[in-house]
């Protein structure tokens, strides 16, 4: 971890509901190194999406501070937005829009000229295997294809950091494996830092250099997959599942793990 590209201190978020306050994020401290793939692992409701929405400038934090890609989250949100990519869990595709329209417009929203945006769209399409799908409406794509388009949209501005919120939830095993390969390739070829949330242990295990386990809005464990297994299950050869159970006292998967 030569230099850090994300530094988070004391990040909190409380939602005020009629029924009382919901403490979704209770104080996150985190440093992510340049080029790292970080797995932000936790059960549903742990506060993963809320954390990600704060780090991507979509949601003002109740407290704390963060620096992302050298920009202060609170003082220079536009600077942060220029340097990051965000792929929400819900994806963010207009089903009636063609893949080309989505890619080119995203480039334009990143303030590229028409020509540059079209060029970047073609480049990404080639890189992510979308060239044959450019004129299809995104509503007519398979789940795996759609996810690739969404990730391409997150990469349009060649971000220093890309945030992926549960990128493989709902995908079949083949598409999941393809997506993992894609994430590894993006990091290898462009040195992009990847901050991904997941509630799949196997995903964190297979993909992340380092895992941060969150539960009820707090970080409850942190380390490489092997470290977590050794520390919490006493044996690097056991499953991450056992370590996770030891950490949170419950299992993450709502349904049987794929693969």
């Amino acid at each position, binding site marked *: 971890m030569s230099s850090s590209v994300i530094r988070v201190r004391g990040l909190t978020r409380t939602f005020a509901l009629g029924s009382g306050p919901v403490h979704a994020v209770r104080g996150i401290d985190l440093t992510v190194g340049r080029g790292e793939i970080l797995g932000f692992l936790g059960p549903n409701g742990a506060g993963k999406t809320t954390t990600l929405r704060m780090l991507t400038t979509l949601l003002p934090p109740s407290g704390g501070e963060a620096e992302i890609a050298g920009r202060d989250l609170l003082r220079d949100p536009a600077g942060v937005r220029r340097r990051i990519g965000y792929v*929400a869990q*819900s*994806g963010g595709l207009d089903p009636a*829009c063609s893949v080309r*329209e989505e890619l080119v417009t*995203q480039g334009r929203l*990143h303030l590229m000229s028409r020509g540059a945006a079209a060029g970047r769209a073609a480049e990404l399409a080639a890189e992510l295997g979308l060239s044959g799908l450019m004129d299809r409406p995104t509503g007519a794509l398979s789940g795996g294809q759609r996810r690739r388009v969404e990730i391409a949209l997150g990469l349009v501005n060649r971000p220093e950091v890309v945030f992926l919120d549960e990128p493989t939830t709902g995908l079949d095993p083949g598409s999941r494996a393809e997506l993992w390969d894609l994430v590894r390739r993006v990091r290898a070829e462009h040195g992009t830092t990847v901050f991904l949330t997941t509630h799949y242990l196997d995903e964190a295990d297979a993909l992340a250099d380092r895992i941060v386990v969150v539960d009820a809005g707090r970080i409850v464990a942190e380390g490489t997959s092997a470290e977590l297994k050794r520390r919490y299950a006493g044996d690097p050869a056991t499953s991450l599942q056992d370590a996770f159970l030891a950490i949170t006292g419950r299992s993450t998967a709502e349904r049987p793990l794929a693969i």
Partner: protein
Amino acid sequence: MTLLAHTGIVFGRCLRSTLRSKTNLFFGMLQPLLLLALFGPLLTGLDMGVSGSSWQTLVPGVLVQLALLGGSYVGLGLLMDRNLGVLDRMRVTPVSPLALLLGRTLRDVVQLVAQSVLLVLLGLAFGLRAPLPGVLVGLLFVAVLAAALSALSYGLAMNVRTSPEFAAIANTAAMPLMLLSGLLLPMTLAPGWLEGASRAVPFRYTVDAVRQVFLGHYANTTVAVGAAVTLALAALCLMGGARLFGRVRG
């Protein structure tokens, strides 16, 4: 300059999306045209206590109604984009957040003015006679009103969660406002209390002004008051819309 350029980018995206949905365009237009075709002829023999032909009263009313109904429902499209995550995706780019509102609003204004032109042409076919400058000024009124309502509708859409919730609020607000503004029949027909109540509805002044310019009267109090009320409403709604739009909910 930057805000203008950013607005242009968002406008382009929205306009292309509007032009793609041909069915929406067609049905959105059908209702006011039918109103004109099936309701207008009923009025030709009636004495409505106003000068000019009944078409000079009805067409401005239907124009304002188009802006009112068309404008207040645009938020549904935004709500859909919000729920799909499209809006969040766009918000994590350097494009100005205000441009995300203004670009959409501009698209709505262009769409409503285009529909209004069609409506006036149909009116002409039925027997509407109005001076060209009057029609142009009338369309300007419609454009400003459409901007106001569209911005407000987006503000609302940013602050409710579901389409039924949005539709309930928009319906409840639009229906009485529409009836109280004397859009289909002039308020000269109304009893005193109703006429008084309608004085509290801003669109009343807009439609009265548009009727005046359709008659070729430009320099009178009705037109001046209509312009002042419509512009004030637009300023208020755009500011309110921008505020509500900027407020981030979960």
